[in-house]
């Protein structure tokens, strides 16, 4: 079942000095790389693919990752060669591309309750960075330098890293007893140094921040802005909009909410929505409709643009898939996606034997493995043919198994998942420690891999 490295199947060294028309001083001496034929390439990657779990293999209930079915037709929409244009084309020669993107900006604004949306950020974390840069630019324009960003402890690691990258100090807010923001603690933490509060809602164990209106008032009263982390927007579609809750700026995770495929790590897209007051800070180029009778859409630089967060215009192939998915579902479908995502999480929770400390939850829940090691239980679940949940995070749930089935699983699939959950949870320590046994690789010693990093075939002596 082992597939050799490409380098183990034969490499070739080309004498580049000899082959190149350039003077020797400007070239490398030689180049050594694998040289498989096309049939060998096809078999290699076909085999590798078969050694890889995917949403088309079965449920992928990673909490806060929202791995749902990726409709096939959105791939065909994205493959249109007429969309394969260079980013430096003149606006008038790419009216189709601009119109489609402008349409997506409008969809996202409506869904988030925002006034303007940029599509440039190439991933959720890049969206966070964009949003925080916008907040920073806003405060700077107000002549109001602020140094802190407040973030609940249960937030995604990206929030903290983003704030730091933007030069802010992070003020971490411990979770309240009920798993939500402690409003009094927030009140104490927020002040004239507060640039923004970054909030995920529902939060990372699926709880809606019921006090969001009060939270917004506290932050706004202190002169800060409210940033919405869109990771869990799938749970709210059609039932709540960040803009209506008082958020000033937000990002959308299109793979989580709008079914664009995650591609084994990316590409994603992290569009950012803002309220009217912040629109002048959006990245350049921004797209707008023009009505001067000549062309329909144009790109321009917003008056106080933060500049750029991507070399060009972001991840086009992901954005067009987003458009197609939203168009397919429409209002009713989006709303139903949220309904079924929440129903599925609640149904699955009913079927499993693990305790779930906090509720009522929406699209995901943080179960606790109690006195078992959550990571071991996860390995045990592999033994029963499913992908396990996110483990040991967030920290507010001890030995957390953060579980998000999404709307795309059937009742039968959830029952199967629950059974794997319960069987692994019931297995003895020895069985868990030995698991998995039926996978491509047995349990991998990750600590050893980190202690002795071998990050290339060269490092393995395979060149």
């Amino acid at each position, binding site marked *: 079942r082992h597939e050799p490295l490409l*380098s183990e199947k034969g490499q070739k060294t080309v004498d580049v000095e000899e082959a190149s028309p350039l003077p020797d001083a400007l070239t490398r001496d030689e180049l050594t790389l694998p040289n498989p034929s096309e049939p060998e390439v096809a078999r290699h990657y076909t085999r590798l693919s078969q050694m890889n779990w995917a949403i088309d293999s079965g449920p992928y209930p990673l909490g806060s990752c929202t791995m749902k079915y990726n409709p096939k037709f959105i791939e065909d929409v994205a493959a249109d*060669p007429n969309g394969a244009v260079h980013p430096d084309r003149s606006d008038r020669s790419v009216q189709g591309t601009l119109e489609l993107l402008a349409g997506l900006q409008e969809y996202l604004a409506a869904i988030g309750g925002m006034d303007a949306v940029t599509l440039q950020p190439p*991933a959720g974390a890049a969206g966070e960075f964009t949003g925080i840069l916008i907040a920073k630019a806003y405060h700077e324009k107000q002549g109001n330098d602020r140094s802190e960003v407040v973030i609940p402890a249960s937030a995604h690691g990206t929030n903290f*890293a983003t*704030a730091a990258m933007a030069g802010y100090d992070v003020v971490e807010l411990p979770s309240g007893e009920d798993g939500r923001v402690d409003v009094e603690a927030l009140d104490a933490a927020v002040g004239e140094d507060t640039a923004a509060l970054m909030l995920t809602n529902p939060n990372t164990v699926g709880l809606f921040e019921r006090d969001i209106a009060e939270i917004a008032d506290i932050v706004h009263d202190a002169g800060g802005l409210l940033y919405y982390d869109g990771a869990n927007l799938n749970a709210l579609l059609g039932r709540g909009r960040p803009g209506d809750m008082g958020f000033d700026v937000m990002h959308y995770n299109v793979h989580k909410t709008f079914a664009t*495929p995650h591609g084994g*790590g990316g590409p994603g897209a992290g569009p950012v929505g803002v309220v009217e007051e912040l629109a002048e800070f959006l990245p350049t180029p921004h797209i707008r409709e023009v009505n001067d009778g000549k062309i329909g859409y144009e790109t321009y630089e917003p008056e106080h643009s933060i500049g750029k967060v991507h070399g060009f215009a972001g991840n086009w192939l992901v954005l067009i898939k987003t458009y197609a998915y939203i168009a397919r579902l*429409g209002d009713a479908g989006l709303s139903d996606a949220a309904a079924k995502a929440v129903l599925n999480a609640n149904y699955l929770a009913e079927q499993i034997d693990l305790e779930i400390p906090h509720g009522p939850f929406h699209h995901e829940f943080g179960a606790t493995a109690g006195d078992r090691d959550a990571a071991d239980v996860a390995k045990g679940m592999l033994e029963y043919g499913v992908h396990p949940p996110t483990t040991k995070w967030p920290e507010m749930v001890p030995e957390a198994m953060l579980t998000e089935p999404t709307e795309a699983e059937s009742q039968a699939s959830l029952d199967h998942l629950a059974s794997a959950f319960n069987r692994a949870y019931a297995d003895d320590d020895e069985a868990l420690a030995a698991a998995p046994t039926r996978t491509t690789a047995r349990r991998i010693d990750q600590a050893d891999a980190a202690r002795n990093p071998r*990050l290339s075939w060269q490092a393995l002596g395979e060149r």
Partner: protein
Amino acid sequence: MSGSPYAPHTPAETAAMLDAVGVDDEEELFDIPEEVAFDGEFGIEPRTEREIRAECARLLARNDDLTEFLGRGHYGHYVPSVVDHLADRAEFITSYTQYQPEITQGFLQALFEYQSMLVELTGLSIANCSMYDAATALAESATLADRVRSTTGDVVLVPEQLREGKREVLTNYCDGADLTVETYPMDDGIVDVDALAERAGEDVVMIYAENPTVRGCIEEHLTAIGEVADETDALFTLGSDVVALSVLQEPASVGADVVVGEAGALGMPPAYGMGLGLFACAEEFLRQVPGRLVGAGEDAEGTRAYTLTLQTREQHIRKERATSNICTNQAWVALRAAIHAATLGPDGLVDLANDCVREAETIAAAIDDLSGASAPVHDRHHFREFAVRTDQPAAAIAGDLERKGFAVHVIGEHLLQVCVTELNAGEADALVEAFSEVL
């Protein structure tokens, strides 16, 4: 169908599940206070997949059918069909980050191989498994320089001729790290090494140079630049792309500490700027690398296996002390680049790169023969692209060319830029002919 077509629930199943949960309908499960609840409409009409395919095809058909001679950081090379067919396999494209390595060995191995190819191309020991694009990779190299800085300075030096987008992204990342971006001068399209040496010093934490440059010139002073950086304890970051690296000087051999650039020159068709950030660096910076790394290790049976590694650098573990906030990256694009590189092999890669040199030279000469234009503007060797000086205003000429079906860059009042790859080389004669009519 009024619900989501991708929620598999039959009405009976929904009823059974609601019953199991103990509610009458899904709405009871939502815990959203009335005051912030949304009961309006987005106004988005659902369409069938057939309608949406037709709608998007109709929209995109409004893009003019131009032959693009465009580059400047986003390059179109022919992507063999096998790349699409393999990368589009559901097990790759519908998978997630490899948090459970035992069942994701396939993608991990593919990314490990991608890293290895970059190690060969750069000569550096470490390559991560992707950044968003060349601009963000460059920006991340500056924050790495900040973390490992051995000078007291805060200046990142970049060439005066640099793609604006790269500079802007770099500036945004530098701001948060309290770094400032300054430029050094160029000498006829490549680095003015004397001027650079004069500018370098204590206050400089990183020197960035490109090969080829944004104008397609092949840099001739890489070793000298490396020496300047070395002498002043600045990090030397070199920008390039995977095709150019196949034949141009090996970055490690000229003292580059970090290589950034565009790896999407392989594997990706023109995609409105969507890219793949190449990031490689010397062994010593291993624990300061941004982004994900795949390492080889062993499983319980002692068989070689792959896993994400050194994750304590990353945001999901280290939070505000992470090396970057990057989470979702461009893994699938890296897979595409790796498949493309494997399909070409070293012969194919070198042939492709050599053609980039030859074609640019040939077409520049043909344009130079026309009255009203001279090319290349810089008396250097070129890779893929070159600047053209025009007697008449460049923007007007570009507009005329566009009406004739060709897209070129306007980079100055009397400066155009033309990029040639195998995708448009067959139309080069027609471009020259069009030039002759509009100059």
